């Protein structure tokens, strides 16, 4: 037995793949937390925002005298007072050269475009005094007509921003014929109209509210050489850039810290008016200032998600082989183009074709402004919308052909031996196995038994019908290759950065540019580094979320942290090993070529001599005995820019019981088998899947942001915006298949958004499946008992949302058109 083998036998069990409980938990379960609102600084002032009650108005006068005289008040600022230093909330993604983008001032100066916009800021000694005084600020508004409905906005009869002359922000197209990745979609549709199958549908993606549990909070301390901002943000680095780009403060004079951050889901992927207003007031007063929003403020001012109308045309041959897909979206941006903003629908452009082998494809989105809260990324951002559309359509196609929904999918999906596969949208999927995931999911679900029960309930005319919903999803995540972002006119890169510092006493600091807010990076990154460097898991400390500690980063969103940021960490670890190797060779008095690194130890081939990486770190720190001319450090940095996106996939199966007498629905069973490549920590992965599932299920069943005809958000608190509770949900059956990604070293794929992307259509497909025999082929989300009941009564889809009606998108008399589609309740009114 050789020495090398001896060492190998001492190799600690691999950390990667181990269900490690989280390092983060100890503080969080004992209340030893650092939320932004916990921060107290000497002399700190508290801010309250005065917000417009009107959806659309000009400001004619603001009287602040009474507020200034109120107890505890130090100052009151209007937009006019702050306009020279407050900066502007910019969009990073103008999707077309001629995009219309209204200026978004943190504190409005003369014009407000949605209810909840800030018009003045009160600074007082306590938050209660600030809020009291905010009530005393007297604002004269001249109310303007507001445009609230997306389809109304498209008519340009009432303008959200009269100065722009139109509500249309931009148009963006991906055409497979034009870019050479497929055929002409109109030809495919025309061909299908002649003897094939054409499915035409219009689906609504209702407006959602991210509803992270920690309300947003910002503290600014202007008293240091750098202005320090703590904020409940997913994007401290992006925030620092945007402050520097728009306020005149040099980037080097700004430090942004994201301390403990209580959830985000895209909702804290923003640079907010509140952050900029707090900064401006703190700079004006020269005192630390804090603003923490109430939940009602979160609802009306934090960005919303989704909000699309989707006009879809799917062409297929008579046997169900798909040939073409045309997507025409209308997207509501709300009042302003947010940081990703108009790019969110574009992120769906490559995903409507999903896992299916369409010959021709075209994606179009037209983005509009309305006088509602701005819209931006919410868990999935563009891909849930796409997945919903295609997975609903595939069910419709299955009905048209008369086969099981799984059969129609299998007929059309990419086979496991066809990877890598370049899709009709032009994306190259590196790996996957849809057959394996589906087979496993079917078995765990008891698919055939549930189909038999469904049949039996149909035949016995059971008042409670059973429906089975399928969603065989994929998505693209791991944002993003910088060159692709550049080609799409996105304002930044998609790389991620990491540093590893080998401390003299044997512990390791890992600095990551990602900014976790619940995902468990401290644990997962420790596992990666412990394996790579052969150091104990406990000895690794992961640092993040402070631009002074982690100066380079692109933060956390788009399921990018592991696949991009984790790879950067791994590459930094490899560089540490490379830098340590000549020092180890020197210490071992061996040639570098004879030194090999295994399980934390540099050994000399064929001998039992070895030195651990921690010993090399100590020797490097003392610097007493190093090779001539060598730099005395083994610390290393790495920045990783991915070549491609990450393409997780999975098969989700949902069984819903529908009471046909009341419209009540009940989830009976939910199974998902996700393929997210190599799993670093199965415990964390399960958590991401569970949480993602419930957010997607919530879109299907419960959530929706509703406005009244004055433009007031009526779902403006947790009383009316109905988040699911533990009593609404069930326990899930989750499992995995593994097709490692070929785009990163560890073979990982993103998991943060997968559950949300996949689950919404699975649930709606199940409900529709339960009542299809009653003449229903669509129910608008959220599928409340009232809507389900109405759909059953109508024997046709109820295509209305709230009190507003859907105008038909399609010409009457066109083939395959559902006669009641869109016209069921509304077109004549």
């Amino acid at each position: 037995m050789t020495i090398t083998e001896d060492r190998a036998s001492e190799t600690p069990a691999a950390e990667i793949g181990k269900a490690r409980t989280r390092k983060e938990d100890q503080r969080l379960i004992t209340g030893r937390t650092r939320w932004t609102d916990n921060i107290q600084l000497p002399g700190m002032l508290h801010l309250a925002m005065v917000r417009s009650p009107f959806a659309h108005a000009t400001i004619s006068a603001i009287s602040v005298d009474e507020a200034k005289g109120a107890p505890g008040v130090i100052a009151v600022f209007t937009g006019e007072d702050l306009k020279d230093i407050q900066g502007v909330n910019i969009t990073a993604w103008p999707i077309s050269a001629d995009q219309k983008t209204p200026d978004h001032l943190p504190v409005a100066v003369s014009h407000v475009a949605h209810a909840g916009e800030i018009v003045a800021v009160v600074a007082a000694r306590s938050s209660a005094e600030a809020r009291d005084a905010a009530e005393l600020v007297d604002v004269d508004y001249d109310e303007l007509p507001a445009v609230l409905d997306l389809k109304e906005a498209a008519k340009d009869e009432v303008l959200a921003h009269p100065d722009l002359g139109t509500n249309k922000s931009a148009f963006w197209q991906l055409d497979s014929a034009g870019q050479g990745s497929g055929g002409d979609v109109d030809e495919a549709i025309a061909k299908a109209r002649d003897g094939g199958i054409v499915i035409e549908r219009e689906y609504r993606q209702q407006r959602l509210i991210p509803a992270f549990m920690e309300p947003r909070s910002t503290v600014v301390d202007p008293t240091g050489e750098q202005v320090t901002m703590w904020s409940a943000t997913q994007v401290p680095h992006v925030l620092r850039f945007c402050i520097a780009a728009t306020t005149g403060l040099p980037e080097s004079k700004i430090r942004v810290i994201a301390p403990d951050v209580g959830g985000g889901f895209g909702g804290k992927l923003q640079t907010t008016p509140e952050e900029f207003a707090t900064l401006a007031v703190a700079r004006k007063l020269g005192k630390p200032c804090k603003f923490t929003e109430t939940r009602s403020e979160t609802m009306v001012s934090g960005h919303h998600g989704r909000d699309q109308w989707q006009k879809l045309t799917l062409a297929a041959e008579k046997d169900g082989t798909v040939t073409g897909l045309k997507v025409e979206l209308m997207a509501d941006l709300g009042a302003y183009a947010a940081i990703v903003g108009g790019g969110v629908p574009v992120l769906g452009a490559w995903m409507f074709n999903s896992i299916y082998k369409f010959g021709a494809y075209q994606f179009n989105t037209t983005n509009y402004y309305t006088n509602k809260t701005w819209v931006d990324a919410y868990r999935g951002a563009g891909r849930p919308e796409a997945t919903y559309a295609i997975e609903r359509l595939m069910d419709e196609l299955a009905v048209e052909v008369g086969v099981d929904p799984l059969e129609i999918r299998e007929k059309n999906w990419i086979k496991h031996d066809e990877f890598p596969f370049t899709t009709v949208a032009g994306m190259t999927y590196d790996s996957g196995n849809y057959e394996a995931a589906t087979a496993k999911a079917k078995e765990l679900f008891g698919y055939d038994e549930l189909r038999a029960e469904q049949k039996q309930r149909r035949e016995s005319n059971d008042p409670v019908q059973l429906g089975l919903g399928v969603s065989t999803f994929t998505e693209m995540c791991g944002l993003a290759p910088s060159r692709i972002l550049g080609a799409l006119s996105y304002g930044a890169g998609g790389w991620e950065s990491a540093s590893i510092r080998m401390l003299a006493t044997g512990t390791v600091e890992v600095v990551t540019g990602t900014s976790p807010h619940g995902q468990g990076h401290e644990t997962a990154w420790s596992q990666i580094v412990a394996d790579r460097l052969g150091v104990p898991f406990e000895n690794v400390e992961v640092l993040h979320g402070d631009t002074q500690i982690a100066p380079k980063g692109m933060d956390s969103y788009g399921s990018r942290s592991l696949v991009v940021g984790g790879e950067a960490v791994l590459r930094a670890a490899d560089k540490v090993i490379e830098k340590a190797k000549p020092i180890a060779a020197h210490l071992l008095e061996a040639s570098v070529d004879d030194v090999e690194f295994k399980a934390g130890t540099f050994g000399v081939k064929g001998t039992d001599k070895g030195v651990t990486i921690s010993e090399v770190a100590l020797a490097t720190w003392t610097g007493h005995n190093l090779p001539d001319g060598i730099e005395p450090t083994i610390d290393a940095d790495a920045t990783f820019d991915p070549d491609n996106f990450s393409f997780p996939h999975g098969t989700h199966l949902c069984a819903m019981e529908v009471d046909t007498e009341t419209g009540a629905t009940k989830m009976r069973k939910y199974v998902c088998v996700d393929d997210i490549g190599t799993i670093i920590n199965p415990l964390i992965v399960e958590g991401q899947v569970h949480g993602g599932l419930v957010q997607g299920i919530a879109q299907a069943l419960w959530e929706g942001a509703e406005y009244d005809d004055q433009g007031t958000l009526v779902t403006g608190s947790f009383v009316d915006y109905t988040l699911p509770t533990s009593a609404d949900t069930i326990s899930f059956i989750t499992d995995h298949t593994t097709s490692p990604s070929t785009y990163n070293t560890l073979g990982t794929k993103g998991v943060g958004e997968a559950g949300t992307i996949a689950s919404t259509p699975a649930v709606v497909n199940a409900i529709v499946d339960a009542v299809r025999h009653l003449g229903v082929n669509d129910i608008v989300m959220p599928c409340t008992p009232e809507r389900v009941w109405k759909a059953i009564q109508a024997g046709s889809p109820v295509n209305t949302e709230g009190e507003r009606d859907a105008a038909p998108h399609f010409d009457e008399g066109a083939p395959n058109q559902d006669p009641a589609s869109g016209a069921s309740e509304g077109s004549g009114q």
Partner: protein
Amino acid sequence: MTRINVTVDGVRYSDEVEPRTLLVQYLREGLGKTGTVVGCDTSNCGACTVHLDGTSVKSCNVLAVQADGHEVTTIEGLATDGELHPVQRAFHETHALQCGYCTPGMIMQACDLLKENADPSEQEIREGLEGNLCRCTGYHNIVKAVQQAAKDLSSQAVGS
């Protein structure tokens, strides 16, 4: 201002408070007990849940003056002698928290639930936690945590 005498996490405090001060504000701003957090303004989310004389209350829904003469336990006072409470331990072991913002309230409510019902069914757990919102976990592992804590507590009871 009104004087109140409150015991919080085993320490007696005597303070002047504005009568309108909520218990959660008193805990956070007055005593620096920032482990207890605020998640909404309509008493829907339960993030601020503490125990008042051993029973869970949403501390945004109680005035500080109502706690006068009473005993409050927050998440910060749940562990004893450096030993985690079985519910805290179960939350950690079953990965029942992600961002951790709802966690203090969720744990305090779970303790109360188990005090009322030492051997709850899954449905009873789900209904018992209905007043506490979590956006990260989908509740799946929170239910598991409470089930595990119930087992641990009952074996502790048998052992003692």
